[in-house]
């Protein structure tokens, strides 16, 4: 089979287009290959000789921004090849999320002015909840403030519609990267890589390069694991509550030794501590290796997620006091903001990342046998 060399770029000609620039850098990496042991991106690169746009999208989403390759690279500026693969892939990645987001346009606004958007939404929804709460209540605990029926009426669509939007985007992603039918083995490998955050391990390095520059560290992987598993515990807690409510007719409020609390309290703590950790590490890391122009959106997402965790914990701590009402409004406002922004905020990265890991597992299986 002949090779479409017209896809190749000149390594010395930098591009402002994120996909073209990522392609230029990936081609240099493919001719070098010194970084193969850091993560999944480099072995995936070596399976190709030229890179179509879909290949770039896939590689960009497979990159976890561990930055090992940057500090190891002999071609970083001032070398004329000016390599900064973490940044190039982060750019192409952000570009792909914004392009694939449905409906389009919203993601761009959030990424550029994330903190303002998130703060305005949390405040707005909190006021809305406070107003709704002013209506006469009908139940115990939180339901004395906001009826169960009202919560379901608001949060069911607020949860399902964004999920549907993400589904539309993921379908487009899968088509773009050339994904086919998945096997159980693909799922097993991808979930294992995601669950252990394998691509932030640095391979034999035993850590990634973030807050300590060229020194390897596990701090970011640990903080991210706290957020990831904390989030899943909180989600499991809510799901447990839903099941208790509808299946077992056991209504909130629940005591500490109940499934929702036993999952939710540690989850909230992990989420809060993890987000605080990520924000602190982020301050020490070199912004030049991250996504250009998206710092606001990325920070806002971590703040928002941490705030959901923290306000949930505080809400539990102040139960039965007069603070419950205002805090409930704030917490629900934050949760609603988080849900509605999910397809357009950094939250989307989790879904794309999993899709990229699935595609990587699949491609590896198909090509390497």
């Amino acid at each position, binding site marked *: 089979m002949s090779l479409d060399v017209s896809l190749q770029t000149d390594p010395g000609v930098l591009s402002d287009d994120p996909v073209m620039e990522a392609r230029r850098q990936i081609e240099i990496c493919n001719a070098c290959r010194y970084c193969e042991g850091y993560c999944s991106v480099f072995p995936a690169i070596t399976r190709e000789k030229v890179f179509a746009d879909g290949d770039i999208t896939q590689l960009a989403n497979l990159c976890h921004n561990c930055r*090992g390759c940057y500090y190891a690279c002999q071609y970083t500026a001032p070398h004329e090849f000016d390599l900064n693969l973490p940044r190039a892939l982060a750019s192409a990645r952000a570009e792909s999320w914004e392009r694939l987001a449905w409906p389009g346009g919203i993601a761009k606004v959030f990424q550029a002015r994330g903190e303002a958007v998130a703060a305005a939404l949390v405040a707005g929804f909190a006021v809305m909840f406070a107003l709704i709460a002013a209506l006469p209540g009908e139940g115990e605990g939180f339901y004395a403030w906001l009826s169960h029926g009202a919560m379901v009426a608001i949060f069911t669509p607020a949860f399902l519609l964004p999920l549907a939007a993400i589904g539309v985007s993921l379908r487009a992603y899968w088509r773009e990267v050339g994904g086919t039918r998945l096997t159980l083995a693909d799922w097993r490998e991808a979930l294992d890589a995601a669950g252990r955050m394998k691509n932030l391990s640095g391979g034999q390095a035993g850590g990634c390069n973030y807050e300590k520059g060229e020194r390897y560290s596990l701090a970011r992987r640990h903080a991210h694991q706290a957020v990831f598993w904390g989030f899943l515990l909180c989600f499991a807690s809510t799901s447990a509550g839903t099941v208790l409510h509808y299946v077992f007719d056991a209504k909130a409020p629940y005591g500490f030794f109940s499934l929702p609390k036993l999952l939710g309290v540690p989850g909230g703590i992990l989420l809060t501590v993890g987000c605080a950790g990520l924000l602190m590490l982020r301050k020490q890391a070199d912004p030049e290796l991250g996504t250009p122009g998206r710092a606001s959106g990325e920070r806002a997402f971590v703040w928002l997620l941490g705030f959901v965790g923290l306000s949930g914990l505080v809400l539990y701590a102040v139960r039965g006091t007069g603070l419950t009402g205002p805090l409930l409004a704030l917490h629900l406002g934050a949760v609603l903001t988080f849900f509605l922004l999910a397809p357009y905020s950094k939250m989307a990265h989790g879904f794309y990342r999993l899709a990229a890991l699935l595609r990587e597992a699949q491609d590896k299986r198909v090509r390497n046998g």
Partner: protein
Amino acid sequence: MTDAKTLSAETWDVVVVGGGNAGLCAAIEAAETGARVVILEGAPKVYRGGNSRHTRNFRCMHHGPLGPLIDTYDEEEFWQDLLRVTKGETDESLARHVIRQSAECLPWMEAHGVRFQKSLSGTLSLDRTNAFFLGGGKALVNAYYLTAQDLGVTVAYEATVKHVGIDAAKATHLEVDLAGETVTVKGRAFVLASGGFQSDLDWLARAWGPAAKNFLIRGTPYNRGLVLKDMLDHGAETVGDPTQCHAVAIDGRAPKYDGGIVTRLDCVPFSIVVNKDGDRFYDEGEDVWPKRYAIWGRLVAAQPDQVAYSIIDSRSIDLFMPSVYPPVTADTIPGLAQQLGLPGPKLQQTIEAFNAACRPGTFHPQELDGVATEGITPPKTNWARPIAEPPFYAYELRPGVTFTYLGLKVDLKARTTGPQGQYDNIWSAGEMMAGSILGQGYLAGFGMTIGTVFGRIAGQEAAAHVA
């Protein structure tokens, strides 16, 4: 940033000249004994590490699996490999010393921050003999600088050593240009590890004539051989052919310096290679590329303007590792010639003659297939398949210099020798003395082995001298 005042304020126990692999190993060994150590690195921080930053592995003797290495690679096999590439231009006692010491270097490297990975794709043939650094040589250099920093070693960047002050057989100080300011650095022991002279084109031109100006330098522009030259002026004993350098054929569009690994080009065996007059000049299919790329550096260097063009057709474009530069592409031979600036009719004639000399046979890109030409000079003895299926592709070739062979003569303790016998307190390590062991040819990963073994020895000896 280490300033002139810090450098000149004290008499250092050990002064290390050159902050590449060998210098770093020496500095770490010396600092671990408690010595006050300074590294004078000629490059700015971003380009520190000399040619070590372009390396990727370390050749290592071992009995049974060791780190990333499989099976066994014993002293005798290692020695025979070295003997073959150097054609005897080596010092057996020094060479065997390096080979024996290499085994214990690997765990030492790991203990000092170096991380390994399994051999890279496309390098399976090396997974028994060469341990690959995770992230390559720059990651290794970074790890050693961090280790040195943790041990309290002082590092001065942009510190160019201009002169070694020697009184009888004893070095006393160095004259250093520190980012434009002249500083005297005093020390009790000196380790010289500042590489060869391959980036000084004028020096190369003295051996090679004006052709050297057209050579590309694959590695750092900072290896200008200033300290080596100064030691020659002192009358220090040397080894290695002063005129020779290791050069390979690389993509002619590569940067003048520091192009490193990505400028390699693996298409020659599947191509015909012509010079700027459109003439073939050597058997492109003599052997597999890993065994021939080194001689092609010299072959291209001997052609007019030190340039050549490797030409293939569409059937061969997918047979080799991708070059980082896109090929020049055309649907006709005259079209290709025009883009390359070659005489079109002549190129057409050369290719027609070649095609007519090709004989039927079964083409096997991965092995010597014996598919050869008949009746043309020079012949092509393998993979001779007509250049006939458009589109046609061409890559420009130029000589890329890797390193020079001239170095300081050392003994088993890395000690150098002057006109009046051994110097009291000057040791040398790395490329600067590698010519003692690798007097000709090249053995993948062996430069790093020499640098690590002799860097460590030089550091230990220098520290013992001042203890």
